[in-house]
Each structure stands twice: as C-alpha cells, then as structure tokens.
C-alpha cells in the first residue's frame, strides 16, 4: 500500500484545519500513531502523526505549536535591554547564541559596533554555547538509538563548559551577558587559562565519543543510509546548519557573512559530509564541536586588551529602520528581523529559528522508513522545541 505525494498533499490540505483533533480517527487504511506531544524521542512537545502500515511509515505530519510562548509578540512590549533576557529562552541549550544576532541587529540599527575585545568575548561565549549544545546532542543521539551511557559522559563534560559560563556571567543556562554595545562585565582573572584547559578536556571528550558512539557497529547500522537528504532537497526545504552541511553544501554564516564578530580572526574549517544520512549529521556535529574548541582556544590566546563596552546612551533608543542579522547557531541559521520606529522597544521582531525550518523536511524524509528510523532521523535532525515554537 502506497500513498502518492499528491494524495498526501490533498489529505493534508483537506484536514489542515481539524487535523489536530481528528487525524487519529482516520484508521481506514493503516494505523495512525501519534508520536508525541508527550514522547521521549521528541524531547519536548512536538507531535508527529504517523500513518503506519505495520512498522513502515506511509506518511507523517509534524504538528507544532504546543510550546508556543509568543516571543515575537512579547518583545514588542519590552525595551531593547530587556529583550535579551527573553530570547535567551528560545534555544535553551545555547542561550548566549540567541542573544548575539538580536544584539547585532540592534547595534546595526544604532550604528554602534562593540569594541574588539567584546567581539572576541562574544564569539568565545557563542562557541562555548555551541560546545555545550552539541555535547548534549552527542549524548542525546545515543539515547535515541538506545545507548544510555554516552548521555552521562556528555552531561559530565558539558558541566565544565557551563561552569565557565557561570563563572563569568553568574548564569549557567541563561547568561544574559551581552549588552547593546558590548558586554556586561569583563572576564575574571585566570579565566582564559582555565577555559583553554577545559577546551583540551572537551577535545578529549570528542575523541571518546568518536570511539564510543560513532565507532560502534550497531550505531553505524542504525544511522548509515538512514534518512538521506540530498543537497538540493535540503536547500529547497531551507535546512541550515549541520543538517545542510551533512548533505554536502558548504555553507556557514560564520565564514560567509562579515559580521562584527571574531570568527574572521580565527582559523577553522567548515565541516561537510557528502552522505546526508543520520551518520553524516552526527559526524558533522562531532567535528564541529572540535572546531569550536579550536576557535575558543585561538580566541582566548589572542584576546586583545581594551574596553568591553562601546559608547552607548544610558537610555537606549534605536533609530527608525529595519535590519536582519543572522548568525550560525548550533542548530543552524538564527536571525532576527528587527523593525524599529525609534522607540524604546522594537515595533516588530521576526525571529527566524533554525529548528522550525529543519523540522519542515520531516514529512519528506520520514516517508517509507520504519518506526525506529523515525527516532534516529528526528534525533539526528536535532531540534529544540523552544526553537521550533518560539
């Protein structure tokens, strides 16, 4: 029994309005399985309605919005300095990465640029957020495939990075450290040496994961050749980040876009893989963790002296205008389109999150796979629910 693409689209279109309630009643052919909203594999509240024939998936429809927190609306009633606190919570695993594009957009509108030292430190925190995020991914990928133990190693080693973030900002998860024009504080004494030491540890962790998880035969059997996304399809669906690079598209905003951040001062490789399967996505993320360690080490060694805050007025008013700034976040391209009318707060903010676009390929990539493959594909696409629903 097969469902053609046009039939599926017709079905989805016809049921779009009431799919949220009625879809599980449609059991005339095949079984409808609701994966989520409460399901361990969706690590959050994503719901995936899958039509199954035995264990084979005929088609799926991801339903999102269970965790919609209305950030785009909330930021309209807040001043610019207040907004970083909110947007910290979008992709909660790498909070400082969420602040950066917004701050950059506001700075661009104001015509302010952070001092070089602040740019370096922002980049360091951005990359440390990436390390914490991808460390979690590596652990989580093991859990999705059924190996519990790597998760605990990931948790243990992520702690070092979080401790470093905490020792600077006071916040482990939500540092809220970036300000318009620079940073809140300078780093404490001895922090750089400690960070470089911890980057060595994280590189050791990457080696360990490469042997423990990616070198495992069963892991390879479960991920190689599963959920292959060709490059053109990935681009059509607007995939970004490691998911795109795993399909062989050499595209990285850190290198390709000239933003007032310190990536241009660091020497790093953009990792790509040609396979586009689950294994490639996992592998690319593992190598990116290594590259992030490299970037942090380099920037810590070359950190210039100087002020950490540019001259900005005490009460921040952003002149009227529009700006879109995106950075390469752990999940992919994250951008803020800020429309200002010259007030204390923005008139409208559109948040482009990576997970929302990455998850849009799910109906395409999950057709015809087996139920266990749903889990490994979702795990390797890697999304954060807060990042999907905002």
């Amino acid at each position, binding site marked *: 029994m097969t469902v053609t693409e046009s039939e599926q689209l017709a079905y989805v279109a016809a049921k779009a309005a009431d799919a949220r309630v009625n879809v599980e009643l449609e059991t005339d052919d095949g079984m409808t399985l609701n994966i989520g909203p409460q*399901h361990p594999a969706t690590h959050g509240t994503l719901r995936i309605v899958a039509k199954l024939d035995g264990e084979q998936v005929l088609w799926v429809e991801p339903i999102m919005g269970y965790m919609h927190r209305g950030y785009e609306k909330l930021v309209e009633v807040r001043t610019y300095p207040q907004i970083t606190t909110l947007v910290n919570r979008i992709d909660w695993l790498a909070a400082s990465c969420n602040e950066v594009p917004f701050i950059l957009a506001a700075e661009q509108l104001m015509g302010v640029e952070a001092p070089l030292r602040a740019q370096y430190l922002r980049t360091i925190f951005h990359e440390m957020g990436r390390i914490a995020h991808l460390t979690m991914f590596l652990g989580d990928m093991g859990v999705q495939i*059924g190996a519990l133990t790597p998760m605990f*190693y990931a948790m243990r080693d992520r702690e070092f990075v979080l401790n470093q973030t905490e020792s600077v900002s006071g916040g482990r998860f939500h540092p809220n450290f970036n300000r318009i024009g620079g940073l809140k504080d300078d780093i404490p004494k001895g922090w750089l040496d400690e960070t470089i030491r911890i980057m060595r540890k994280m590189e050791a962790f990457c080696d360990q994961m490469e042997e423990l998880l990616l070198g495992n035969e069963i892991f390879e059997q479960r991920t190689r050749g599963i959920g292959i996304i060709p490059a053109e399809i990935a681009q059509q669906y607007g995939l970004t980040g490691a998911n795109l690079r795993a399909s062989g598209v050499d595209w990285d905003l850190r290198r390709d876009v000239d933003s007032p951040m310190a990536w241009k001062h660091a020497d790093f490789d953009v990792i790509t893989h040609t396979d586009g399967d689950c294994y490639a996505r996992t592998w690319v993320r593992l190598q990116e963790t290594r590259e992030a360690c490299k970037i942090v080490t380099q920037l810590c060694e070359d950190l210039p002296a100087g002020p950490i805050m540019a001259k900005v007025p005490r009460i921040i008013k952003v002149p009227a205008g529009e700006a879109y700034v995106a950075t390469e976040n752990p999940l992919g391209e994250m951008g803020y389109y800020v429309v200002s009318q010259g007030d204390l707060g923005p008139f409208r903010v559109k948040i482009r999150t990576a997970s929302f676009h990455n998850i849009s390929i799910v109906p395409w990539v999950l057709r015809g796979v087996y*139920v*266990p493959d749903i889990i490994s594909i979702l795990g390797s696409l890697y999304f954060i629910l807060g990042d999907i629903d905002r």
Partner: protein
Amino acid sequence: MMLGLELAYWQESILRSLGVLAAVLLPAGTFVYVFLFKMVSFMQNRLGPMEAGPYGSMQLLAEVGKALQKEDVVPDAADRTLFKMAPYIVVATVLLTYVVVPFGPDMVFIDNQFFGTGIFYVMAVSSISVIGIILAGWASASKYSLLGALRAAGQLIAYELPLVLSVIGVVIQAGTLDLQRIVVAQATGEIFGWGAIGNPFILTQFIGLLIFMIAMQAELAQTPFDMPVAESEVVGGYHVEYTGLRFLLFFIGEFATAGAFAAIAATLFLGGWWLPGLDLEANYMNVLGPIILLAKMMVFGGIIFFIRFTYPRLREDQLQRFAWKFLIPLALVNITATGILKVVF
C-alpha cells in the same frame, strides 16, 4: 531426604515451594541491586542509590514499597481480565523455569524420576512468557503496547530457535536432557584423560555458549535487542499502561528471567553447582551448591547488564536478519561439528 533431615512429603513440598520463591526472588533482587543500581551507576559516572541503607542496599525494598502503594490503573478501553492476568503469566513462567534447575546433589525442586526432560522443559516453558506479553500488549488497548508486544513476539520466536539449537550441542556431549546429569557429566568429565577440573562445557561448546548468550540477550529483551521495550521508540512497549503492583510483577519477571537464564547458562556451560575439588556426593554441597551457582549466575548477569548499558539498539528487521541468517546457521554448524566429534572421540 534433604540436608540429612527426615521430612514428611508435605513438609518437603512446602520447603520446595519456598525454595522456588527464594530462588526466583533472591537472584532477581541481587541482579537489580548489584547490576542495575550499582554497576551501571559506576559505568555511568554516578553513585547510584546511596541513602536507603548502607550504600543504598535497602533501595530495592523502598522501590517495592513505592510500587505497592500505587494505584492499580486499568485503562478504560482495556480488556480488564486479560490486562490483569498478563503479568501473572509472565511471572509464573519464571517460576516454572526454575523448577528443574539443580542447586546441589539433593537440592532439586522436582525429582528426576518424574522429570527427566530438564532442558527441553525449560525451553518449552520459557516460551510461555510470550503469551503473557502479547496479552499485555493487546489488552492494554494502546498502539505503543501493541507495537511493543508484536515486536516481542517476533523477536522471542526468532531467538527461541538459536537458543534451543545452541543447547543441543551440550545435550549431545552430556548424553542427557536432565540438568542434574549435565552437571554430573561436567564434573566427572575428562579433558584428554585429565580430570582435575572435570570438563565444563564452556571449553568445548564455546560457540554454543556464544549463541546462547546472544539469544538470551534477545530473549530477555535487553539492549542491543530491546526493541519490545525501547523507551525512546515505543515508550516501554507492552508494559506502558501498567502501574503499581502489576508493573512490579513485569519488572520482577524481567529480572527473574534474567536470573533463570543465567542459572541455566551456568548449569549448562560452567558446571552448575559444582566446583573442581569438591565432593560431588557430599551433603555439604547442598549448602555450598546454591552459593556456587549464584556466584556463577552473577558472572552471566554481569555480562548481560554490561552489554545492556554499553551498546545501542538494533532495529527489528536487522535483528531478525541476524537471527535467521547468522545465528541459526552457526548453531547448525556447531551441532554438526559436535556430533561428528562425539562419534570420533
């Protein structure tokens, strides 16, 4: 005649029933504490339970107490009778499995003259637990349960065959199905005329042991073959709707089955309750035997749980392919080789 005491038949029967209960619950509890709580915690960079009792040794009682207090929820759409019955079938299977395992020269629960089929009986009754699992999955009226139960059924049937075939090598070598006589055959056996350590079948039947271990892992639904209960896919599979006492029964069933299979593996391949240098007929073996057997079971339990927390999970079709295309041919080759060598030597 047990432990040198003269007992009436009813007294002996009561002792034997209590003995089976102890034989089921003690290894199961030991496995849970030593392996699931502690060994795995140390593997995973944590301490495990530390508060209840010294080093958390009373944690198991706390867990049981917690489970007993919980409400026994039956889903609305469930088939109530079957739903309530299923966990008892699973646990009863384990009790039946233990019946033929010998713990000492006289420490047997059923006399051999009534029950000489031994290992054949074990293989037969251990399959009954599938019925309990399918009942649980179907009666829960949950799609996840159903998927889990069907996976369990397919898997347990696929791995029953290599399990049985791997044992046949031992049976050919010992010349008997009776577990007690398999122990005696290992104790009195000789390796090319050298009889100091007997002839534990692990030496000659290592392929059989390998297949037995793999099939046992699948039969127990432990990682890498834990698709029936895969928590990241079917969220616990057939027992997803169970709470309280009934969940506890499934839990005990899982670990007691692990104990039972470990006991059978120890009996078949490691010489059971006997150790080299000990008197096979002596009365003290009735006390020492269970301890030796438990120690050997712990070896197998350690391997089972070490693998469980080391490997990821295979996919259902990969597992079936592995069973039919690799394990069963290998087991048949092993049987052939054993048969030929038995005739030659």
